[in-house]
């Protein structure tokens, strides 16, 4: 026994002092050697770098179980725990890091801007400094391909889809009335102020199973997690004034801002073609409170209140004195979201959004009072198995309660009301097969209690990196959306409207240059039809409508070729027809133009401390029905052209003077035509050209930021 122990001891002692040689070879997944990789034992000084043929050799005095680490830039760090004596002549295959800029991106259908975007079609500043966009982020998005310019509306029309087919989400939660109400023929603006957001994803089709109730498009906005500093912003504009303030504490921050817009002085200087009894007057206030919980948790409470009112008489060919339209709107919106990360790579995102929208409309001698209460509740869980596999799943609930009180000229009153509640759940897997091949596969199920209907929407997209700078992607998906409120208030015997998207995308990205081409086909089914001139309680409703949209979107952005200059060019070709609403036959709707193009240029002039911007928008003529001819939507209006310019001058770090003119050359654009209900004595229906309220719009603003840091300014708010 003694002898044995002695021997054992000697052996142990020997192995304690003896050096072990660790050796092997490091390759990539194809077996090609990786030279210059860092190879070492965790917690020790023992290690080396591989030589060009991928091999390594080093000695260690460590014994027993040790962890060998191999790290190399753009590859996942490799860990191997084994007995030291086994670490000989080993072959280590490093996996490529799929989280790098040159890895494939599943991006068919979508444009990203802001933080965390690998390929940015729009930069954060672009959202607000695009000429003609007038500080409205919706306006900037309209310079991207896939959108149609509908000058009299201002909302997003995507790939042959109606504006109602696009939904907007803030931090994953739905925004119920994202646009400010306006009178007919006057473009609207987004209600949300752009400077609240750090990132925007604009999907023109084929989006994730996480999002539903949108037939064509989703716009996803991510709000700022933590403001950089305390500051006060003051803005004075030709159309109003605004003030904002941000305060920070240890784990909390609060931002509030208020704005007042009154178009009266402007309209007195530059009268437009409407007769304003009360020009647009709006007041808006927003507050965001953010609270950090532990290290990773973040709670955000966002609240916004706005009122808009105006009273206007607009020309009408059938009513000599014109149509008087008065609007009082009040909108209250809350958005609460919470996100946190747990052990074992689980994360949670949950939220609640609530909107209360009240409109009091006076149309000639009728009064309409609409109240909409809507809420969205959502819970999403994500499990990050590894950098190559991630699973997201969740459930959500939409509540809409709509009430309308209609008082006609003869004092008769009518009431329309409905509850539109939808339960939905979704699951989606993000899979990286390699740095070159990735896919997202998801499924969404929705149950509408109002329609008593269940729908299942499969979604899939796949992307393959075809070259060092290029990639191709494909996407397919089914999308459902309940019919809009203006039909549901009269009839609820519907199915959900449906589209399927098929998208093929090619992208080439090289050193500050992006080229993108995307072809798509959309098939519309179950569209709502009715048989009256307007949706009325007496109409016959059905889901017998159908249609299609197909087209090609091209995008080119270059930030390199011309010094201090960035520009992008978009072109969209659209071929669409649909039979919906009260269409007698399949036709190209009046909001769709076959060709849309935009050119946006930004140039920085250092000597003048100025950024000048120019943009040009083109849209081919849109359809209208000329009753003097046979057929429906049988004529085309003339093309739309506008050149816009802006100039931001930095007086000092914290003071900016901003000028902007839309449609510099005053091109006389035509939004459409209105025809008399009755033909005249010659049997001709007389017409009136519907022109924009004003050809040009001027804007001058002075923006002043007060903060400890004297370099901040509001350039990003413009």
């Amino acid at each position, binding site marked *: 026994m*003694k002898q044995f122990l002695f021997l054992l*001891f000697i052996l142990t002692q020997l192995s304690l002092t003896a050096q072990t040689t660790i050796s092997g070879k490091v390759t990539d997944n194809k077996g090609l050697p990786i030279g210059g990789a*860092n190879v070492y034992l*965790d917690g020790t*000084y023992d290690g080396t*770098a591989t030589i060009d043929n991928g091999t390594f050799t080093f000695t260690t005095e460590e014994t027993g179980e040790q962890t060998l680490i191999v790290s190399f830039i753009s590859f996942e760090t490799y860990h191997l725990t084994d007995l030291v004596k086994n670490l000989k002549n080993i072959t280590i295959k490093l996996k490529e890091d799929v989280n790098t800029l040159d890895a494939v991106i599943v991006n068919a259908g979508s444009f990203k801007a802001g933080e965390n975007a690998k390929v940015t079609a729009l930069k954060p500043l672009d959202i607000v400094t695009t000429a003609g966009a007038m500080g409205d982020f919706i306006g900037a998005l309209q310079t991207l391909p896939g959108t149609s310019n509908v000058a009299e509306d201002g909302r997003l029309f995507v790939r042959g889809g109606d504006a109602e087919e696009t939904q907007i989400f803030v931090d994953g939660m739905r925004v119920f009335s994202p646009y400010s109400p306006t009178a007919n023929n006057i473009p609207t603006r987004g209600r949300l102020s752009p400077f609240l957001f750090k990132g925007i994803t604009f999907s023109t089709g084929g989006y994730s199973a996480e999002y539903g109730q949108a037939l064509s498009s989703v716009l996803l906005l991510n709000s700022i997690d933590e403001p950089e500093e305390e500051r006060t912003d003051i803005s004075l504009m030709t159309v109003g004034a605004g003030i904002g303030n941000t305060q920070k504490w240890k784990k909390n921050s609060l931002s509030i801002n208020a704005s007042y817009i009154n178009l009266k002085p402007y309209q007195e200087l530059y009268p437009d073609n409407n007769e304003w009894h009360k020009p647009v007057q709006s007041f808006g206030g927003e507050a965001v409170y953010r609270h950090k919980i532990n290290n990773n948790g973040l709670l955000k409470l966002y609240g916004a209140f706005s009122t808009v009112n105006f009273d206007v008489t607009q020309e009408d060919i059938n009513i000599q004195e014109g149509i008087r339209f008065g609007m009082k709107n009040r909108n209250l919106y809350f958005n609460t979201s919470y996100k946190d990360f747990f052990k074992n790579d689980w994360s949670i995102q949950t939220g609640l959004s609530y909107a209360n929208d009240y409109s009091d409309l006076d149309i000639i001698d009728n009064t309409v009072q609409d109240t909409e209460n809507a809420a969205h509740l959502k819970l999403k869980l994500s499990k990050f198995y590894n950098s190559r596999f991630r699973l997201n799943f969740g459930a959500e609930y939409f509540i809409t309660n709509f009430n309308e009180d209609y008082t006609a000229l003869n004092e008769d009153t009518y009431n329309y009301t409905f509850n539109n509640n939808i339960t939905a759940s979704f699951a989606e897997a993000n899979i990286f097969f390699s740095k070159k091949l990735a896919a997202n596969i998801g499924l969404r199920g929705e149950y509408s209690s109002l329609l008593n209907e269940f729908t299942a929407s499969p979604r899939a997209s796949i992307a393959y990196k075809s070259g060092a700078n290029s990639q191709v992607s494909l996407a397919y998906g089914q999308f459902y959306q309940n019919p809009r409120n203006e039909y549901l208030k009269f009839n609820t015997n519907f199915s959900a409207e449906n589209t399927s998207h098929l998208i093929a995308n090619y992208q080439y990205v090289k050193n500050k240059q992006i080229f993108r081409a995307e072809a798509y086909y959309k098939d519309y089914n179950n569209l709502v039809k009715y048989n009256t001139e307007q949706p009325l309680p007496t109409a016959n409703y059905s889901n017998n409508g159908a249609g299609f949209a197909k087209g090609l979107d091209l995008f080119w952005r270059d930030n390199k070729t011309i010094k201090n200059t*960035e520009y992008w060019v978009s072109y969209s070709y659209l071929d669409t027809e649909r039979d919906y609403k009260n269409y007698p036959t399949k036709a190209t709707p009046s909001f769709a133009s076959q060709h849309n193009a935009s050119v946006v240029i930004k140039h920085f002039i250092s000597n003048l401390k100025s950024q000048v911007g120019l943009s040009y928008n083109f849209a081919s003529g849109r359809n209208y029905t000329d009753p003097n001819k046979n057929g429906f939507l049988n004529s085309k209006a003339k093309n739309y052209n506008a050149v816009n310019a802006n100039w931001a001058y930095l007086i000092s770090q914290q003071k900016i003077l901003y000028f902007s003119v839309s449609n510099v050359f005053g091109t006389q654009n035509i939004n459409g035509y209105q025809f008399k209900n009755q033909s005249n004595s010659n049997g001709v229906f007389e017409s009136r050209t519907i022109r924009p309220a004003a050809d040009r719009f001027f804007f001058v603003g002075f923006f002043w930021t007060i903060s400890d840091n004297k*370099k901040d300014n509001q350039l990003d708010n413009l």
Partner: protein
Amino acid sequence: MHNQPKVMIFEKAINNNIKFNKMKKLALLVAFVCVASVTAQTQYEKGMTKAFELWKNKKNIEAVQIFERISTAEKENWLPPYYAATVEIISAFGVKDEAVLTAKLNKAKTFLDAADKLSENNPEILMSYALLNTAYIAFDGQKYGMTLSGKNVAIYNKALALAPNNPRVILSKAEWDMGAAKFFGQPLEPFCKDVKKAVELFKKEEQTIKFYPYSGLDRAEKIMKNCEKKSSQN
């Protein structure tokens, strides 16, 4: 044979003398810790010296690798990951390929986050965070300027509040402010004063911690010379 007593210890241990066993373990532990700390000290110094030498000879990758290895051996010391990050960040300036740039800076950020965990609110680490953001801004100001310059200003303010007399913080902030002042054609004098203050503080600084990033005096003096040139021209 001098091994004999040790064998006896083994025998006794096997005989389940628990008390003794505990004592032995303690003794072994003490001995191990002593030995480890003594040898680690020298290995640490050797390693760091070698890494600095490589860095000086522009062998950045090799230098980062040694700092990385030291950081896994010295799990409580913020300096090795700090240097691994800082060398990586400095070598990212001038990189033309955005994929390479972000790969390098992501790697640097991992090191910097590790250093920050070991030493929270450390002004030197904060300066490297600011430098990391500056590398992005230098690559593409339009894309990264808006979000990151605000972050940098916040970092400078925080660092200045934490260490109002740290010459590197004062110098870095002054350089940043000068960049903006030049752009707006504003006088540089107030910032030259800061640089002058930094030079004085650099000279007064007591260098007590080995391998601490005390450097910066040369740069400060160079900038001050430029300041003096400008003011004599006026």
